[in-house]
């Protein structure tokens, strides 16, 4: 999510392909280094949708379709 623009595709690939995975890892690190938070929408108990915050690439469920990056929360006015 980019302020003023909405959703922007950063990278796409198959984690089972080594080159793609490396690309995804680099992009993931770049976004976290830029201070963004990462989350994956998941399905929890009784099909209830929720989000899982991601702190490292290994946290991402292998079957996750996407990782959403969004600006870090800060105290508002």
């Amino acid at each position, binding site marked *: 999510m980019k*302020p003023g623009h909405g*959703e922007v595709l950063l990278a796409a690939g198959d984690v089972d392909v080594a080159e793609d995975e490396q690309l995804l890892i680099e992009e993931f690190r770049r976004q976290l280094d830029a*201070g963004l938070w990462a989350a994956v929408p998941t399905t929890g108990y009784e099909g209830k949708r929720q989000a899982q915050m991601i702190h490292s690439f290994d946290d991402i469920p292998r079957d996750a379709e996407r990782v*959403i990056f969004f600006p870090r929360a800060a105290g508002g006015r």
Partner: protein
Amino acid sequence: MLLALAATALVALALLSDLILPRLGAAWARHRARRRRTAPIVYDPGRELRAEQRARALLRSCVNEEDWAMYRDLGFIRVWGAQARRFAEGGRVKDPPYAYLIYPHRPILAYVPQTNRLLNEYCVAFPDQTAPYGSELLPDSDDVLAKWMALTGDERRVISSANMHLPGRQLDPAQVTRDLWRLTQWERGRLRNAGGSQLSTNIDPGS
């Protein structure tokens, strides 16, 4: 006499050239800059609308159907507190002790679902850290999704990041009370519709 004056003028000019030449250069540069044609700033009136449409599609793909319908119909989303979610997963407690209302670009509001008592306003923003002098806002639906992800993913972290205030600082308590009443009516309507459709489904095959 004339020769002496000319010589004096030349010497004075040479001495002042260090002062005059840079100023002349700067004046010439300013003149050129004024004459240079600048590309007009192209305003795209549809950009924000398209961003919001993308954001709505993203939100819809992430949250429950009920949450999406709530946002579409009422303009906010209710999220149960983490404690309530934990209890629900254990299947032990029916009445969640607290919940949040998420409005776009407004504080997150905590309340008690059983009594509709308002607890706190949590003012939270998602500023673009890469923009040094302030940033544009997320589209409305992205702001809601960011709050939803942060609350359902790590409630403690986002709440500790927020500035907490008593109810009424930004959100009008009367408006929130009306919203909670609307939410109750909306849920009753959905239950009625679900019951009706289930009833008709049950009746149809036999008739």
